[in-house]
């Protein structure tokens, strides 16, 4: 029994636990700094946010310890039950919760308020792990893939119903895990293309190319469609001749019409390019018919969908998106300077971070955060405090710690013997990555403002416990792998 316990302790992945601990301690200092109010704050009083956060932290440590003690097999056993329970809880929340700033995601239990959305992530991860672990599961079977995607979309839709769009977007992170589990990379590529096309088309829709009457946005997207089509022919079919045809004729005509438009008669050359692109689609279709290689069809469809996407994106942007969402996107793309409205948070957050310099102003010496210039500074914008008080040195160290943390999770996930453990591990890594990407990105003014917390840093019990739950279940599964063998 003694040796068994000793080997159990050894089988816990201590690097992850240590980084978790370091990040949580740094996070507490940041919350203390962000909520500090010139001399009238007692850091350890439960009336203050730092005091409360301290309590949440100790609860998390307890939670982590309990999770390590529990048998990992219960997760496999109760995965669907937990998932179903969580979905019900999420739905119930819509009806039971009070409206907080338009959001119906908080559940009051006496003095404590909880956000079930934070706990639904681990349940979804477990359900996915269990489903994909099943013997009959095969990613290539459309029906299996559909169910997996359904498991992801269901909580997303419910959370959107709670008006917590930001939290629901986190579930997109599961697609990274699906990619590892065999989802075609092309889907990720299409997703990326969609984002890039959308941004380029919107951002440069009103910028003209040289002397021509051509908006750069659609021009660049059409050019990318040609290049991607040619590139895919090369990657998937290893055929030089059609690639050369597409590239040569497409770029040749584009260049020619650019010269004519620039020096002789200015006109909008995207119309010429559109015709060329449609011709490429036709050409690929012809190749599919003559060659009977379905890859040609896929590329043709990709190109056609891309063209359609390009011409519908401005419609989507102007008609489907809400005005406040449009402004957020425009602010991020630098098309609009709205420093008092949507851009205020991001501008103030950049000022706070930028004023930190190399070494920062020191703990409790940040002026921007102390004087409440940055809204949500102890929750979503907590990274400002790190940037202002610890400077480039401190905030870069925090980012590198996160990087090591997530890379270590990927490594551990890959080391799992069971698909269950691997799927769960990748889910955990993907969720942390998504939070880091969006949260730090919005604080730095790179990604749109989407209100999701920075793991271990943002003030709040629900998110801290949610992340602890997510992480320690994986640590327990991982420990069991080493220990049982």
């Amino acid at each position, binding site marked *: 029994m003694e040796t068994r316990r000793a080997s159990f302790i050894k089988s816990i992945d201590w690097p992850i636990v240590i980084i978790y601990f370091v990040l949580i301690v740094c996070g507490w200092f940041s919350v203390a700094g962000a909520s500090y109010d010139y001399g009238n704050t007692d850091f350890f009083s439960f009336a203050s946010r730092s005091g409360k956060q301290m309590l949440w932290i100790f609860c998390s440590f307890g939670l982590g310890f309990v999770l390590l003690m529990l048998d990992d097999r219960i997760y496999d056993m109760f995965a669907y039950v937990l998932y179903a329970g969580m979905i019900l809880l999420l739905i119930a929340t819509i009806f039971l919760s009070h409206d907080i700033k338009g959001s119906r995601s908080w559940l009051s239990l006496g003095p404590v308020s909880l956000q079930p959305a934070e706990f639904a992530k681990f349940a979804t991860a477990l359900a996915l792990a269990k489903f994909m672990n099943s013997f009959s599961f095969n990613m290539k079977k459309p029906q299996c893939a559909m169910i997996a995607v359904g498991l992801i979309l269901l909580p997303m839709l419910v959370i959107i119903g709670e008006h917590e769009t930001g939290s629901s977007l986190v579930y997109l992170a599961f697609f990274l895990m699906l*990619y590892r589990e065999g989802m075609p990379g092309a889907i990720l590529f299409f997703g990326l293309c969609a984002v890039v096309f959308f941004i380029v088309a919107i951002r440069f829709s009103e910028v003209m190319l040289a002397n021509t009457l051509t908006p750069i946005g659609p021009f660049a997207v059409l050019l990318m469609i040609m290049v991607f089509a040619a590139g895919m022919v090369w990657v998937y079919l290893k055929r030089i001749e059609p690639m050369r045809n597409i590239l040569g004729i497409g770029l040749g005509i584009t260049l020619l019409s650019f010269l004519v438009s620039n020096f002789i008669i200015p006109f909008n050359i995207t119309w010429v390019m559109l015709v060329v692109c449609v011709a490429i689609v036709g050409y690929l279709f012809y190749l599919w018919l003559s060659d009977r290689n379905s890859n040609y069809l896929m590329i043709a469809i990709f190109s056609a969908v891309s063209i359609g996407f390009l011409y519908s994106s401005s419609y989507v942007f102007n008609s489907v998106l809400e005005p406040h969402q449009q402004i957020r996107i425009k602010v991020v793309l630098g098309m609009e300077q709205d420093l008092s409205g949507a851009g205020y948070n991001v501008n103030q957050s950049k*000022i706070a*971070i*930028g*004023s930190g310099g190399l070494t920062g102003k020191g703990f409790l010496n940040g002026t921007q955060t102390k004087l409440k210039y940055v809204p949500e500074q102890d929750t979503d914008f907590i990274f400002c405090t790190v940037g202002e008080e610890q400077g480039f040195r401190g905030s870069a160290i925090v*980012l590198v710690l996160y990087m090591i943390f997530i890379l270590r999770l990927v490594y551990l996930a*890959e080391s799992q013997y*069971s698909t269950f453990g691997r799927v769960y591990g990748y889910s955990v890594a993907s969720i942390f990555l998504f939070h880091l990407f969006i949260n730090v990105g919005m604080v730095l003014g790179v990604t749109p403002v989407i209100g999701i917390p920075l793991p271990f840093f943002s003030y709040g019990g629900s998110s801290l416990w949610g992340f602890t739950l997510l992480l320690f279940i994986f640590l327990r599964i991982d420990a069991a792998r080493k220990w049982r063998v």
Partner: protein
Amino acid sequence: MAKDFNLEKRKFVLAGIVIAIVLIYVTRLFVLQISTDDYKKNADSNAFLKKTQYPSRGIVFDRNGRLLVYNQPAYDVMVTMKEVKNLDTLDFCNTIGLTKQYFIQRMEEVKDRHKNPGYSNYTQQLFITQLSAEECGVLQEKLFKFKGFSVQPRPIREYATSSAAHILGDVGEVSQANIDDDDDSYYVRGDYIGKQGIEKYYEKDLRGTKGVEIFLRDAHGRIQGRYMNGAMDRHPEAGHNLTLSVDERLQALGEHLMLNKIGAIVAIEPRTGEILCMVSSPTYDPRMMVGRLRGKTHVRLEHDPRKPLYNRAIMGAYPPGSTFKPAQGLVFLQEGIISPATEFPCHRGFIVPGLKVGCHAHASPLSLIPAISTSCNSYFCWGLYHMIDNKKYVRSDSALTVWKNHMVSMGFGYKLGVDISGEKRGLIPNATFYDKVYGHRKWGGLRIIHIAIGQGEVLLTPLQIANLGATIANRGYYYIPHVVKKITGGHLDPKYLRPRRTTINPKWYNYIVAGMRSSALHGTCHFLGGMPFVACGKTGTAQNKGKDHGVFMGFAPMDHPQIAVVVYVENGGFGATYAVPMGALMMEQYLYGKIAPQRQELIERLSNTVISYGDEAR
């Protein structure tokens, strides 16, 4: 549960995404935090409310310790918009003497962020400037009724004298050009800066250093306390006091004598180069250039046809006339063109074929000393003719260059470097100048003969003529004339403390001094002979399109001189008429501190003399 190794490779894609995101974000952090300090400045302007504390400007005394310029308390009325409640506008306007329209307009201006970029509802904004102590007193009594308004002291300049306006200069609000030109970025809109005179030249000594109190301001503009408990605050440092070399009573006498006349009087202490008085007439009362009066006064003075703002003592370039002859004599002696015994004939003028420079009746031939005494034109024309066409210089242009270099060494042709801005350099023509006028080598001594008697192209400022007097008094050296004697807690520019020797041997000065003494005893300045001190002098009558300008240059006493004076009266006719008695009175005033009773009447007579300039009707 076989692993798909093809899929396992995808872990590298995922790891790559993680690394790429972190790298991009670290780069972004670098850009925000290290590559620019814009954000830091932005943060400071966000969080710090800097309250300027104004230093008191240095006080100015005359050479005898009389107070000339000091500071007077004035008050700015500040308003904090957020706190303005239930204001009785009518009562407020009546209290500080505003019209209701002006009040409304001013409130709009304060709130307009284009005109007032630092506007905040929560902080004090400047509402109206420079209320006098009395006005402020009335306001202060009622201030409790006007919520949101407060007063803030801000001293303004006050003058204890009505004279010396051109020397003292004035202070006004900085212009955009002042702000842009200032390398230290010291000034901000609304600050005061010296605009003319010593206020401008000694701005950095007088102004002191602004202090600052730093408060922390939260996102709503509310003050949250002092930054670092005031550790970073700076106290204002008062400006340095100045002691002028000017004698206020001498200055006042000079201005009094010059009433109703255009011209200048400059007196210098030869031993030190200290300017004892610098009168430019017409002048104005410096007390009119204070506070809210300044703008109106300035416009009125600018439009006055006699240009009272123009400091003729240093900006007026005049023909020196015969006061230039001592300088000529010195050059001829130094160059060996003449000896003290050399005689030239004069038959009522310098007469050569095709040219006549007239002169008045006196004995002929005559030597240098009587030539100065009688101010003989002929003598100096002969001298210049012999010098410029002298074969020892080979050519006329090289002769003129030698002549010019001697003149420049006496402080002519370039700015002397007085510590009041706006000085002009005058004109000492050189060979290039005449080449341009007459053509290369197409001129000789006769062509340019008028410069021999201080006419023609030669132009000097009254300050330069006075400096010639000082140089002769010193027998061969001068100090750059300056109006500031001492900067309390500072140092005078060392250039004012170094003597400058002329290129003339000091021994030649004795003959010039003898000539000028002779002139005072029985020559053109014989008025001086009646004074109770041993004075030397030289008159000048500068030909002019209208009536001639009257000039006097002299110094006293002859040995150990204490004062050198120049009096330049535009259209004053013969130098002896007004300029000599004025110069004599200036000397007496300085040497004795008062004017003897028998000459009081002369003062009034000179002062009441009106010279017509044809602009009186306007």
